[in-house]
């Protein structure tokens, strides 16, 4: 039985896995109660964390709710685990503002 991952908006390139995912497991995408594609996880994904469902190039916006939740800091393939290691916030970045000043 595949793990369910919830997609919120059809533009989204991430989905939220409702249980823990192990590398190689099949993930069933669901949006508004309807089943979508099945994708294969290429990495372990912790409980309720996100899986990439459409490939992202470095610098591209990562979309959830149909809106940007940050920018990819490296290329991400569908099936990859998405979190702070490959998506960065574009807001409240005092570190970047300070670096720019220097």
């Amino acid at each position: 039985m595949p793990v369910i991952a919830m997609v919120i908006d059809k533009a989204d390139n991430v989905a939220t896995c409702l249980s823990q995912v192990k590398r190689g497991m099949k993930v069933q995408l669901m949006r508004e109660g309807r089943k979508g594609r099945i994708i294969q996880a290429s990495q372990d994904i912790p409980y309720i964390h996100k899986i990439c469902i459409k490939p992202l190039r470095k610098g591209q916006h990562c979309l959830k709710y149909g809106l940007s939740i940050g920018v990819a800091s490296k290329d991400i393939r569908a099936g990859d685990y998405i979190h702070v290691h490959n998506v960065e916030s574009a807001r409240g970045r005092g570190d970047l503002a300070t670096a720019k000043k220097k």
Partner: protein
Amino acid sequence: MARAARKRALRRTPRRTPPPRRAWWGYPRENGDVGARNWLLILSGTLYANPTCERVARTLRHAIPLTHPLGRCQIAPDLQRTFETLVGHGLNANAAGVIVIDHHREEGCTAEDIAHAIAKSGKRVEALNIREGGGAIEVTAKATRIGMEMLRAITQERRVEVPVRKLLLGLNCGTSDTTSGLSHNKATGWVTDAVVRLGGRAMLAETTEMMGGEGVLAAKCVRPALGKRIWRMVREMEERILACGVDLRGSQPTGDNMEGGLTTIEEKSLGAIQKAGTAPIVDVIPWAKRAGRKSGLHVMDTPGHGGESITGICAGGAQVLIFSTGGGHTINHPLMPTIRVTGNPLSAKLQHDTTDVIVTDVFEGVPIPVAGRRLYDEVIAVASGRLTKAECIHEDNAFAINRAGPSV
């Protein structure tokens, strides 16, 4: 699995639920407000009056102390903020009577000034000063005696049936995770819509958690000027963060947010604003300011700090608050009943002791309106007198006054 679970869940759900209750039971106040509780409030003007307030409140039944570390050596705008917060709590309809106690005179935030501002509403209020009153023990005795007389009057008041129009529902979230935007915040949004549809008011806050969702909120505003105010309010918050020269991550989203799968503040925000539902935004107000009477969603400029945010909302006049949480929470405002709801199955189990409403079945296919209705019914019940779990065990942890400047 999902289909079977969905079927099971739907079988449990009655096909036709009666329409949401349009009335609740509350204590009518002189100024037209209605209280969900009938507390005698023992309000501390400054930290050096805290123990006296606590002694008085311990002696009396039906009395709660509100204490804090501020009220002295604050820069003027912060002192004003403390003053407004204390007055706001005195004015909150959940307080039937108020005794304000301070220590020395702190110009701009004396017990007298606070009591004077509260008295304008027609509420019973008395002010006492520890130095002028003959010391800590003398003032404890005086305040206890005054409080006893007040309680004799207060406890004669009875709840009456009032329309939902008289409800100001506070909205806040905490220890958010990826289940927040999918389940409990959605259910909260449904409740917001139900309350506003019946002519009531709701209050959204937490400016930090609007970062990335400003456009969505601005589009809900009844006037473009309000939308501009939201954009400005979030920009100012972001500028304050940038001025600190650090990466916001780690503070927002917090460590527990990231553990819960939230990657960025934008993701957290877009989940957080689901609490707003589809209701129109009718006003945008600063921290701790009293909300206007217009039905709809009021937005308050508060930080993401849960205790400070809900303290601002309580000063704004909310009688009940939904605290929507992914990780589960113990947060509870002493004066404003705080209903904790979660849709995260693990948290529902781990934080069962202080979780009032569970909506985990959303992930088994139960529709949001069904979960929302469950939460709405709890709001009406709690507003009408049902104790929340945290109230039962005096989990009074969330009175925290926001400050911007240093102690001086």
